[in-house]
């Protein structure tokens, strides 16, 4: 399988094959590339970023770890349904264990709880 590594802007072109002992990876510049290729072959994961609606503002959020790629649209549905009604600081958890595997949705910017102006 040919892959482009998404771990950094370098974007290494990877070659990954399932072998009896696991996964063989080539083309990676660093160990992150190997880990990425292994995951792509077994269970691809992505960090999911989005926004959560609050009073008069959209608050940017992210998952605090990669989640299963296959779950992304299901998780988006939950994030879209959520509303933020209180102030949060950057890094605060807004939704806990959203994927059932321990990933939390955290604020990636602070929100003061006040409606923002134009």
């Amino acid at each position: 399988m040919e892959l482009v590594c998404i771990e950094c802007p370098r974007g290494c072109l990877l070659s990954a094959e399932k072998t009896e002992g696991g996964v063989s990876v080539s083309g990676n510049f660093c160990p992150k590339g190997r880990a990425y290729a292994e995951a792509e072959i077994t269970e691809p994961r992505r960090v999911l970023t989005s926004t959560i609606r609050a009073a008069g503002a959209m608050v940017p959020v992210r998952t605090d770890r990669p989640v299963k790629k296959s779950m992304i649209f299901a998780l988006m549905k939950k994030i879209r349904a959520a509303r933020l009604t209180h102030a949060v600081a950057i890094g605060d958890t807004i939704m806990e264990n959203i994927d059932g595997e321990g990933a939390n949705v955290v604020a990636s910017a602070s929100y003061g709880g006040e409606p923002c102006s134009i």
Partner: protein
Amino acid sequence: MKYDVAIIGGGVIGALTARELARYALSVVVLEGAADVAAGASKANSGIVHAGFDAAEGSLKARYNVAGSRMMATVCEELGVGYENNGSLVLAFDEAQIGILETLLARGRANGVRDLRIIGREELFLREKHASGRAVAALYAPTGGIVCPFELTIAAMGNAMDNGVLLLTDFEVVRAENGKTVTLHAADGRAVSAGYVVNCAGAGAEKIARLFGDDSFTVGARKGEYILLDSAAKGFVKSTIFSVPTAAGKGVLVTPTADGNILIGPTSVEEPDFSTAIRRGAFGEIIEKARAICDGIPFGETITSFAGVRAYCDRHDFIVEESRKAENLFNTAGIESPGLTSAPAIGKAVAEKIAARFGAEKKKDFNPKRRAFSWFRKLGAAEKNAVIAEDPAYGKIVCRCESVTLGEIVNAIRQNPPARTLDGVKLRTRAGMGRCQSGFCQPATLETIAKEYGLSLGEVTKNGKNSAIVSGGAI
């Protein structure tokens, strides 16, 4: 409510007719089919105040052109509209074309155009260093000018409204009942009654006349496509530069605009309808023809391109007359080029005829003046500070390319005729008209319109029905 006069069409002819009628003790309503005035040819044309040497001697085009050209400076002064008497040049490239210049010179003099003369290469390049090096002579018309066509239309309508005229937008006239009085029905069920109707419907003039049973003329569509350069190209040419006219029209010109851009075009294409879609081959054609009259045009500064469609009529002269077939109807139709130049004179002539018909007196309290859209930007720093102290919205820049403040945008929404759409704000304030083409200011402008009208963002349109800016709903 019954009005004395209903004007159908809020283009430059309708707007200036409304303004002239507002001088008299008459009740006047303007019915505009689109969401804003200046929605058709008045929004998209060359913005030229023609000197008046093109039209055949004795034609209405010649008469109104020269008269309108002489009125234009005063009208623009009163309405605070950008106008510049920048002069025009028609370039000739060989002996045969010099012959054409001589014909134009003679015709212009016969039409009453002042100070017209043919100049040689030396004076030509002194005036315009980017005029094509192949040019051998030029017809110089010092009375030629430029005006912002939509600004003129909006300002004239605003001044008419300030003086008591009512404007109804999105009022597309689909039926006319013509008895003792005329009742005009809109597509949406509204109706307006009037004693007399002026047809200023431009592209729709034939359709309106036919609603009255007048089939004495037909209207055709001629599309003109343009390329607009950023104000960074300002000064590339100072005068309006034409090639010699042909049967198809005045050809492609290169001109400064009253707003400081450089405008190049138009093409001239007969079309079956009034679509303003730009043809795929248009750009190559404009560029090639423009390069024939100017050297080194900075096309890299292109910020937008657009098309306008002129309505010409089968008589190939303006129609400015009482309907030959219907009672209570006055037609202005086929007002193609030099229609913008002629508009003040046409409006005056129509208003005088109608006033005479009604025996209406001039109002004593008519105020011909209107504050310029550009009033704020023309102030000095101290004066601006005084305005900002009064209304801090004037201290907040929304459109950074054209330096338009929130105060000016709100003013455009509240002032006559009120802007209701994104294009409406753009045409009045220049917000979104600059080099980023509204990339930065659009969301803030949209929010301002939504706030002023109590709408959601999704309800604000570009230019009326079916043109919502954000149509996907809240996420």
